C-alpha cells in the first residue's frame, strides 16, 4: 500500500469538487422545475445521510479500501465479484462525466471540434494527474477548487440587476411527487457517487475528521446549488430554464457587455476533472487490488482509454445523455450506492460488536 497522505482540507476540496462535478451540466434536482430548491435541500439532507453511511463503513474498517472491506466482510470470492461490479460502475461513471464534458464543450465552446479530440486531450491530463498519485490530486484540488465558488459568485453578482426574484413561484404547483423524485435523483447524482471515495478515505491523515468533512462538503454543495438555481431561475425564468440544454452556460451568456462564458467552462473543467480523476483512480486502484497487482499506475492508461471509448460509445446523442441521467441512472445506481453499502455497514457492525464485547466492554 502506498503511503500517500492527504490532509482534511484536501479531502474536503476533493469531495466538494467531486460533488460539484458535472452538476454544472446536469442537475437532476431541476426535474422539479420551480420547486428545485426544495428538491436540492431534501436531496442534500438525504445525500448527507448516505455519505454518513459510507463514512461509517470507512470508520468501522480503518485503513481499508472498498475492495479490502468487501473481501473482509463477505469472503474472497463474493468480495472480488462485487468489486469487479464496482470497477465497472466507476469506469462507467467516469465515462459519463467525460461524455457530459465533451457534449458541453462541443455544443457551446468548440462546435466544430470532434468530441473525441476534446475528451481525448482532457483524458491525457487526467491520466497524468491520476498517475501522480492521491497527494498530487489533493494538492491540485487545493489549487483549483477555490476558483469554483468565486466563478459562481462573479456570474451571480453580474446579473443582480436583471432579475425577477419571484420567478420561482408558485410553490409546489404539481404537488410533492415530482419534488421527491427529483430529490431522489439528486441523492444518487452526485451524493451517492461518493462511494468511490471509499477507495480514497484510507489516505486521510486524520481519521477523526471524516464525518465533519463529509457533512461540510454536502452542505457546501447544497448552498452552491441553491445559489446557482436561484440565479438561473430569476434570470431565465422557469420556461426558458426548462428549455435550456446547459443552463449555467445560458445564464452566463446574458451578462451584458462581458463574456464570462469561459468561466463556466473552467468550472466544469475543475469539477469534472476532479470527478473523473477520482473515479479513474478508484477504478484502477480497485482493479489492481482485485487482481493483486502491486502498483495501480500500470493500468491507468488502459482503464482511461476504455473510459474514453466508452464515453463515445455510450450515447448516440445529447438528449439520450440527458434523459438517461435523469431516468435510468438513479435506479441503476441503487444497488451500488445503497443496497451494497448498507449490507456492508450491517456486516461491519456485526463483526465489530463481537470482538468489542471482549476487548473494551466499557
Amino acid at each position, binding site marked *: 500500500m502506498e503511503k500517500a497522505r492527504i490532509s482534511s482540507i484536501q479531502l474536503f476540496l476533493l469531495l466538494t469538487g467531486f460533488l460539484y462535478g458535472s452538476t454544472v451540466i446536469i442537475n437532476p434536482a431541476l426535474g422539479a422545475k420551480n420547486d428545485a430548491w426544495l428538491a436540492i435541500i431534501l436531496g442534500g439532507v438525504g445525500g448527507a445521510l448516505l455519505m454518513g453511511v459510507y463514512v461509517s463503513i470507512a470508520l468501522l474498517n480503518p485503513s481499508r479500501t472498498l475492495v479490502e472491506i468487501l473481501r473482509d466482510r463477505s469472503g474472497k470470492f463474493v468480495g472480488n465479484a462485487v468489486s469487479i461490479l464496482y470497477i465497472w460502475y466507476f469506469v462507467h461513471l467516469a465515462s459519463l462525466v467525460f461524455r457530459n464534458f465533451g457534449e458541453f464543450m462541443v455544443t457551446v465552446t468548440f462546435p466544430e471540434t470532434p468530441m473525441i479530440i476534446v475528451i481525448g486531450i482532457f483524458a491525457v491530463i487526467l491520466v497524468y494527474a491520476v498517475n501522480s498519485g492521491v497527494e498530487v490530486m489533493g494538492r491540485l484540488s487545493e489549487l483549483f477548487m477555490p476558483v469554483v465558488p468565486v466563478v459562481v459568485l462573479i456570474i451571480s453578482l453580474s446579473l443582480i440587476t436583471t432579475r425577477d426574484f419571484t420567478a420561482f413561484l408558485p410553490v409546489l404547483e404539481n404537488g410533492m411527487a415530482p419534488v421527491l423524485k427529483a430529490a431522489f435523483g439528486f441523492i444518487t447524482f452526485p451524493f451517492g457517487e461518493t462511494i468511490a471515495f471509499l477507495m480514497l478515505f484510507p489516505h486521510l491523515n486524520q481519521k477523526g475528521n471524516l464525518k465533519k468533512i463529509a457533512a461540510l462538503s454536502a452542505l457546501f454543495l447544497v448552498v452552491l446549488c441553491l445559489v446557482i438555481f436561484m440565479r438561473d431561475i430569476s434570470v431565465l425564468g422557469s420556461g426558458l430554464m426548462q428549455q435550456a440544454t446547459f443552463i449555467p452556460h445560458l445564464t452566463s451568456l446574458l451578462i451584458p457587455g462581458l463574456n464570462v462564458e469561459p468561466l463556466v467552462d473552467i468550472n466544469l473543467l475543475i469539477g469534472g476533472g476532479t470527478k473523473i480523476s477520482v473515479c479513474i483512480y478508484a477504478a484502477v486502484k480497485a482493479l489492481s487490488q482485485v487482481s493483486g497487482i502491486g502498483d495501480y499506475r500500470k*493500468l491507468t492508461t488502459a482503464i482511461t482509454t476504455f473510459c*474514453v471509448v466508452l464515453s463515445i*460509445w455510450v450515447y448516440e446523442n445529447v438528449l439520450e445523455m440527458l434523459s438517461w441521467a435523469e431516468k435510468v441512472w438513479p*435506479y441503476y445506481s441503487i444497488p451500488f450506492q445503497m443496497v451494497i453499502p448498507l449490507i456492508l455497514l450491517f456486516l461491519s457492525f456485526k463483526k465489530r460488536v463481537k470482538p468489542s464485547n471482549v476487548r473494551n466492554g466499557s
Partner: protein
Amino acid sequence: MAIVLAAFIILSLYDLQRFIRKKEQAKVFVIYASLMAASLTVSLLLAADKRPASPAQLIEWILKMIGVVK
C-alpha cells in the same frame, strides 16, 4: 480508422515497453491486453459506423425488464 489504430498502437507500445523493461507479471499483460483489445474493438466498430448496442441501452433494457423504469 487509421488514426484510431495509430493512437492505440502508440499508447500500447509506450506502456508495453515500460512493462517489459520492468519485467511485470503475466497478469498485468493479460489485463492490459484485454482492456485495450476491448477498447480497440469498440472504437474500430464505431469508426466503421457499426455502433454496437451500448451498455447504457443494455442497462436500460435490463431495468425495463425488472420494471423499475418505464
